[in-house]
């Protein structure tokens, strides 16, 4: 396929028409329904979306208006996005698991008059905050169940909207009008508003244009040679820039098929059934998968366990070199081939990676061991770096130039520079036009010469020319003695241990580094089962002295590896504790995209942090927790604190 096939189409609706002509009979979308994969071709999607758009128009959706999209990865919600764009309205996807409060904020801020929602749960949630979104007039729902008895003066089934539109579309005048609507749309008009996850405070609405989005997606489609024969599984939140970019935009540009899982809980099984060729997973998902594999191997028979560990070791030695096309001795190649038949192939099959041609990870720094594990078993996993304001991509690793500690060179047509204070700044084709209704914030992140500030500290690696990201600029701190303290760097090292689910490193403006840890209930629970450790709750297991012993070993290993690095040797962990509860987005401790919110945690756990630094051996803490249904309760606990021996700092490090 020609690299710039999208040329000429500057809005997504125009691309949809092109796809209906070019790839009419090819699958555009799949969805597992009642246990069977249903398929819609590009021609069918085109037809449905047109009908849907006319139906929406008849209900009053107008050009330039916003329409909220709330729910999971379902074809009808993707079509809601398309149908809105056909009319020139601006879709505003919202995280399906957002609590009512967050939902109310976005809906009110975006001035939505209409909302396309998944099911009763979302309808109930929106109705509960109706007084805060006075402009909302009507909701369209996908899943009928439980909604039959609701007052339908402000509620419509999407199926009915589509059916009405289809009837109206039988009139050639209406069809001609719709064609003109699509034709007259400009590429510079807003195409979508994506609200950021709010790692740094309340979320902001990032406005993206159709032309910018399509140009950015065309570049990466060409970069990874994606074609209409590729398949992706859309399982990440619809409201996240990654899903909109990787699946929606790239799908429309390249014509590949987007498969929607049956339900969020079946995504792993669906992945195996679909066998995607393009795959994206945040580091956390990859971590989770690896943890699960390792735990299941612990329970396997002796033969299988030996076989597994032997060949994983072979892969560790040769796998990456083979994938990179470097020189590998014949014996290594032979062993690897045997391992592929016995271990790697079946393992990839179980994970659903058998047909993956290109896989990406991004969002957080990925642990080097984690990264090379997947590459060593033959998964072409690469890193990319970007943000919502850039429409995801800024850098991506080209095939054959993969390093676990870099995020790759700038993408085609992307201009990246490092400012004097070490911040990464960019200009890119997919660059956002502004924050919705927030000129002040927009001005804050733009430089006078038109670059966007990412807020990330980074530098270009001299050897490879690739970008290296250290941490958020404002998070890189200093200990009282002036030693550099990048918290994420330390946390990532800790989080590679399957027993540690989350880590929060502290040390900025303190004398030494301390960490607060979350145990991984699956991994530690399985260990407890095997070792006859009895526990009644998460809290009890987290506070168990034997669990402390295990984590102490992990922290000691991290200290050893920190000590090996001159610059980092001073940032070894001196004291640690295990938190009595899991950090939870419902409590605001981590974002919906599972990033730690440091400021918030510092406030909430102030008694624990004080105890970490005042030398006490335990501390009492009482925190408010929010249950899934929005009710609140309190958890109190006495948390123990352990001191650590640190490795001697190399003489040179001290001098520096």
């Amino acid at each position, binding site marked *: 396929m020609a690299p710039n096939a999208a040329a000429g189409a500057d809005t997504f609706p125009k691309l949809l028409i092109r796809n209906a002509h070019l790839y009419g009979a090819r699958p555009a979308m799949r969805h597992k329904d*009642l246990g*069977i994969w249903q398929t819609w071709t590009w021609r069918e999607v085109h037809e449905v979306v047109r009908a849907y758009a006319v139906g929406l128009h008849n209900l009053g959706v107008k050009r330039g208006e916003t329409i909220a999209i709330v729910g999971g990865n379902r074809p009808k919600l993707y079509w809601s996005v398309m149908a809105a764009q056909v009319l020139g309205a601006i879709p505003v996807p919202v995280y399906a698991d957002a609590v009512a409060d967050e939902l109310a904020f976005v809906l009110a801020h975006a001035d939505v008059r209409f909302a396309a929602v998944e099911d009763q749960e979302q309808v109930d949630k929106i109705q509960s905050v109706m007084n805060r979104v006075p402009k909302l007039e009507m909701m369209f729902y996908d899943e009928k*169940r*439980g909604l*039959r008895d609701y007052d339908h003066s402000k509620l419509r089934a999407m199926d009915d909207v589509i059916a009405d539109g289809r009837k109206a579309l039988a009139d050639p005048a209406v069809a001609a009008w719709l064609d003109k609507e699509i034709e007259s749309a400009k590429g510079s008009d807003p195409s979508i508003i994506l609200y950021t996850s709010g790692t740094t405070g309340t979320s902001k609405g990032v406005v993206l244009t159709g032309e910018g989005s399509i140009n950015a997606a065309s570049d990466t489609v060409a970069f990874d040679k994606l074609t209409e024969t590729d398949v992706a599984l859309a399982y990440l939140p619809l409201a996240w820039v990654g899903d909109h970019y990787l699946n929606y935009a790239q799908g429309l540009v390249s014509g590949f098929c987007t498969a929607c899982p049956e*339900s969020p809980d079946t995504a792993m099984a669906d992945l195996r059934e679909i066998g995607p060729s393009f795959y994206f997973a945040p580091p956390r998902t990859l971590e989770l998968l690896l943890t699960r594999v390792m735990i299941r191997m612990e329970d396997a028979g002796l033969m299988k366990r030996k076989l597994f560990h032997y060949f994983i070791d072979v892969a560790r030695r040769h796998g990456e070199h083979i994938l990179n096309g470097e020189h590998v001795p014949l014996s290594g190649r032979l062993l690897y081939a045997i391992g592929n038949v016995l271990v790697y192939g079946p393992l990839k099959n179980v994970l659903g990676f058998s047909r993956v041609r290109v896989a990406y990870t991004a969002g957080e720094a990925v642990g080097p061991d984690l990264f090379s594990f997947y590459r060593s078993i033959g998964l072409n996993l690469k890193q990319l770096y970007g943000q919502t304001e850039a429409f995801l991509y800024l850098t991506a690793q080209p095939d054959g130039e993969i390093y676990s500690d870099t995020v790759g060179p700038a993408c085609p047509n992307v201009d990246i520079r490092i400012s004097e204070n070490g911040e990464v700044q960019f200009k890119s084709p997919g660059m956002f036009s502004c924050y919705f209704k927030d000129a002040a914030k927009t001005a804050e992140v733009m430089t006078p010469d038109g670059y966007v500030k990412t807020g990330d500290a980074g530098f270009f690696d001299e050897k490879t020319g690739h970008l290296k990201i250290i941490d958020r600029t404002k998070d890189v701190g200093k200990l009282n003695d002036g030693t550099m303290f990048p918290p994420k760097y330390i946390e990532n090292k800790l989080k590679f241990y399957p027993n540690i689910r989350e880590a929060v490193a502290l040390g900025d403006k303190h004398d030494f580094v301390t960490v607060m840890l979350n145990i991984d209930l699956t991994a530690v629970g399985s260990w407890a089962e095997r070792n006859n450790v009895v526990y009644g709750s998460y809290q009890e297991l987290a506070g168990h002295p034997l669990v402390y012993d295990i984590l102490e070993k992990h922290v000691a290993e991290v200290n050893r590896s920190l000590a090996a690095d001159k610059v980092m040797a001073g940032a070894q962990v001196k004291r640690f504790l295990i938190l009595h509860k899991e950090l939870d987005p419902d409590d605001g401790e981590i974002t919906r995209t599972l990033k730690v919110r440091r400021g918030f945690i510092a406030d909430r756990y102030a008694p624990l942090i004080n105890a970490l630094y005042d030398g006490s051996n335990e501390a009492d803490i009482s925190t408010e927790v929010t249950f899934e249904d929005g009710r609140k309760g309190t958890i109190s606990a006495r948390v123990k604190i352990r001191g650590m021996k640190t490795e001697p700092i190399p003489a040179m490090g001290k001098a520096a």
Partner: protein
Amino acid sequence: MRAAGGPDVSVGDVLLSVEDVSLSFGGVRAVSGVSFDIRKGEIRAIIGPNGAGKTSMLNVINGFYHPQKGRITFKGETRSRMRPHDAAYGGIARTFQNVALFRGMTALDNIMAGRTLKMHANFFWQLLRYGPALREEVEHRKRVEEIIDFLKIQEIRRVPVGRLPYGLQKRVELGRALAMEPELLLLDEPMAGMNLEEKEDMSRFVLDVNDHYGTTIALIEHDMGVVMDLSDRVVVLDHGIKIADGTPDEVKRNQAVIDAYLGVAH
């Protein structure tokens, strides 16, 4: 909340009536002289303190116990005794207080088992998995998939039931009862041993079953909050005797009920 307004419009004629039923095991009188009715489309709760005779009553309704005295009229047909499979053919399905599933079989197979009564292909076709047996299986599987979707248990379709947590087992059991497409669904403590969230989920499913399939439901439940929220009418038993019958609000105010639950000062 349904009981807040007057009579529910969707509730129709009497589907099942119990008249003057008495049941005793040796010298123990489990149920004595109880009469009440269940109307089409309603959610009817049977409540009472421990040992009040609730489960016995349910067992009488679906023919597992044969009362010594009294009559049961189901869909206009009166009989003094009925065998469990007659009840099943007649359109009565139930779940059990202690989950009674095939633990080694998957959730899917367990729910398929609920379709057994609706299968007609003979043994040999089924053995060959061919012809009418195959067509039938596809048709039944479709109905079962609808139930799986309805109960949102897609992710455990292929998981042996014995490996599932209790709350999900209860849901599978409800699925198996629904697979029979019953007219009357008997639920014996559907929320027992569940946490708050599971209870809320289950309550929603009970309401949805009633709403979506139009199934009449009779349920025994200990959780008063659940009973008052879900049911249209409540019958209260104590020591085998009916002490109250009416809407949740009426029952809540009934002095005999308050005494039975809280005890009486002597």
